[in-house]
């Protein structure tokens, strides 16, 4: 794997994946993936369709069991217990929500099962996030009746409601309007500035370039380059005026003729 010099070596590693393997029958999802996410960074996981981004993320949050490899979240082994789950916020690629609940009920429910203090604290946070994500108008309608964008906002609200340290989001900005995107970005930056970190899967490279500080490029289940955005450009032999997109194509194309 191509690696840039670790510029923020003083920071702690919040997520460390070593030699992750996962296959579905004959199809290989992830084949020997290594990556590190440091505190204080917004880490992009970028790669073409079918590269293994979603599989990796699902292994991290415990929705899939890896065939091989080790995943450490804040020093805790994912296999050895569920304690780490209190510290993560997760948004799946296509979140489906319980249709029969109202946004208010759902947010309260998620807050409680993720360990927010009962009573006033939960009520306050639910209210806060409902108004923050502009869900006040529909807080008492069934989720079934919400539009896709509103559902995405609600799903995003559940990511932040318990104040996690590590945010893991799979294609978070699909179906979200610019205002919502700005809100999510500011929430993420807020957590990162307090020593947390975020892992964002995406194949929208221009967004990744502006939003992320670091990135790992994966291709066919393997990580092929990791580092800061500028570092990746350097690896690809580009000036800092070059784009991440160019760097991506050079790096992916360098290993073999991959296309996005």
């Amino acid at each position, binding site marked *: 794997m191509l690696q840039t010099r670790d510029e923020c070596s003083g920071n702690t590693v919040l997520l460390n994946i070593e030699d992750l393997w996962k296959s579905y029958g004959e199809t290989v999802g992830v084949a020997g993936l290594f990556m590190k996410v440091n505190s204080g960074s917004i880490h992009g996981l970028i790669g073409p369709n079918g590269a293994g981004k979603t599989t990796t993320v699902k292994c991290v949050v415990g929705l899939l069991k890896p065939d091989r490899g080790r995943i450490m979240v804040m020093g805790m082994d994912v296999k050895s217990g569920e304690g780490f789950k209190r510290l993560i916020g997760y948004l799946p690629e296509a979140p489906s929500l319980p249709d029969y609940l109202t946004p208010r009920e759902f947010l309260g429910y998620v807050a409680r099962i993720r360990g927010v203090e009962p009573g006033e604290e939960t*009520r306050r946070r639910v209210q806060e996030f409902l108004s923050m994500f502009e869900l006040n108008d529909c807080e008492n309608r069934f989720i079934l009746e919400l539009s896709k964008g509103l559902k995405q906002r609600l799903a995003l609200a559940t990511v932040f409601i318990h104040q996690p340290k590590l945010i893991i989001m799979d294609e978070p900005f699909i179906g979200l309007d610019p205002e919502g995107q700005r809100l999510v970005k500011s929430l993420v930056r807020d957590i990162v500035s307090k020593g947390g970190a975020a892992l964002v899967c995406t194949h929208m490279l221009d967004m990744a370039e502006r939003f992320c500080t670091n990135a790992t490029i994966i291709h066919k289940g393997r990580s092929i380059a990791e580092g800061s955005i500028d570092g990746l450009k350097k690896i690809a032999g580009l000036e800092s005026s070059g784009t991440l997109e160019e760097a991506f194509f050079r790096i992916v194309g360098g290993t073999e003729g991959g296309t996005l």
Partner: protein
Amino acid sequence: MEHSRILQIFVFKLLQYYGPLRRSFSVKFSTIVFYFIIVFSSFFSGFFIRGFYGFSEMSEKELTNIVSITFSSVIAMGVFLGLKGGITALEPEIDFVLTSPVKPSTYLVADLLFQFFFLNFAVTPPLVSFMAVMLHPRLDFLPTVFLSYEIMLLLSSTIAQILGVLKSILKNVEVEAAGWVILLILFMPLLSMAIGLGVNYSDLPYPSTLLAKYSLDSLGNLETSVLLVYIVLIISSYFAVMRINFIPNVTPLLTTALMEMPSSNRRILKWAPRMFTQILSPNMNEKPMALVVKLNLLRVLRDGSLFTAMMLFAIATIANLSFPVLVRQFRFFALAALTFSILYTPLIPAIFSINWGIMERETLWTVAVSEKGFRRYVKGMLIAYFIATFSFALIFYSIFNILLAGTPFLVLDFLLLLSVTLFSSILSVATALVLNKPSNALSLSALLYVFIPLFGAVFLSMPTIIARTTISIADTPPPMIIFTLVSYTSLIAFLLSKYTLAKSETFFGRAPVERPLTKPFLKPQMQHRTNYWNYLLNFLTLASSILMVVSLIGFFPSQSDWEGKAYAPPLAVLTSIVLAASIFFQRKTAKQDDGEFLQQAPCNVPWKASQSLLILIIAMFLPAVLETPFLIFSLSTGMSIDNLTLLIVGEVAMMIPVLLYMVGRKISLSFLGLDSRSAMQEYKTALLALPLTVLTGVSAGMIIETLIPVPQWFEGLFQMFSPSSFTELVKLSLVTILIVAPCEEALFRGFIQQGFESSLGSRWGIVLSSIFFGAFHLNPWQFLPAFLVGIILGYVFRKRGYRLWCPIALHATYNVTLLVLNYVLGV
């Protein structure tokens, strides 16, 4: 042009629904299994009901009643589908077909065809076999009943579409009200029978009754015209409906068939649950556990699961309560009927689980990424299912108790309700966790979600059921019995819930895609080329040598049978020539196989004990299913069926599930152990083991017959398979050698014993498969001999490197020896 479009859409729908892409092998396999079980059980419920009526001819009124109940339920099905949307659109169709420039009428006709096919596939074989039993001995009515039934199905799909289209363009509430009124009218006579008013279908001018009368050839002139008016009315309204220009608001009916999704414009269903909703509304002070329970209760209330479950449950219960009236066993049975209705309670949690599998399962990421989230969720689900099922079933029975005018609800009834509710709730949750997502709400895979809780709960509640139906203790059970039953129930429930919670731990670990078995398994030591010539030689050697010995019987001077004297010499000559020839050729090929004999490899087959057990159960069912047409034929025509035909059909049917399973999973058939190498050595071993086998079998048979005297009817049954003449002896021997022995050995040794051995080790493998081999004969007099002989066969099978030739030879010679003994001694 339009016709080809209709056909295209129809084929697309078929491929979508039944196509190869949707299902894994195990789902397809269990589909076939359950299909057979459904056919089989409807057949037997027919027999059960006939048991009450008596097997002589039924009166015209009774027949009309039964047939019109069946027809009415077919219409009810149509109305139900209509209320749910009526158009069986699958999700991809809504996005692609309905947005394409296909005329709505074209699409509707294609959908009608699909519904007709779908309903036929699902309900025709069970219903027709049920009808055949009910009509017996007037089977000459069967063609017209079948024809009318098909007309009924078509009308029912038509009604479904009419209601569906009306619902999509008119206001929901009006169409729904109309639908419910129709349903109520349809079930009114059944309800009146249940509460003892005694209005019969045959008195009323329902279309189903009239059609039933038509099919039974008892339709009056006036009634004919009324029936015609009905049909013309339905068809003309269908044509009116077809003229619409576009179909708005189509929902994926097959997915949401068992749900009523909440929506703001559905007030009719909203007011009732609102009361509960207010109690259940999650408040922010709750402990997570209480919250999860509340959420699950809210789910079954709001997504309509509880409502649908209650409807189906009510219909099942009404049908059950009207049963005593229908079969003319009045009040006496009312109490028992109530008791048995309790056994339908598992329908409620089963439907919760189907809807959980279809919708809720996708939303579990929220709980899965919380600490201890999913385990707590499953616990909450268990509690919620129990609360919902128990309280609603209790309310329901109280209502019925009042309607039945005071039949007492006994302590044991309560206990039975409690245990059935408890077991079925836990089993429903476990089923949902273990099985794959049902492909849709009306699929056969969803039926598994009903079967497991239903039969599981009934089976586990057996002690309570027995106590309840034992008249001497039902009214005032001794405290000791109550105590025992309560502790039994709580122990089993505790163990089951432990199991379910353990399943919750591995729920998310699984890969979402099942591991495909693309590479065929090959048994390593058998990868040489198959030589079909050798199969022929092996069988020829075996058959000719045994038949040669049999032909010697004809030479006995004491033989009184003229056939023996006439046929024995030519048979002896023929068999000795064949034997000599086949031994000669065997010698030639046997040399090539030298050196790779008998590797004592451990048993290593790609199936396990559970598969063996499943296949065994089907293999025991299937012969009965396939033989019944023959039996009905012989019963109705008075012609006796050749016992050889029955024997062959039964034995071959037994092998079908094994072959289907192995071919479906692409497992090489060589795993069964029937390889194509020379079998001479095997036959020698069999010859050595023969005396021991015969001695064991015969003496065990004698011991058991002295212990339990053989009843008359059984002897008669056995007589069917003992030869009365020399030709029959030869025929039976031939069938034994070429069909019975290979089939039974391939099943019990090749498949079942190897499956058990690979899971449980050799000793248990042999013993268990022998027990099943004994039990397979379904009577105590053959059990012990078959069990002991089975052990010998199993041992020999293992010792000869899991090759079948030796056990086949041994089995065949043993059976033929018995036949010869029967023939010579006349026993």
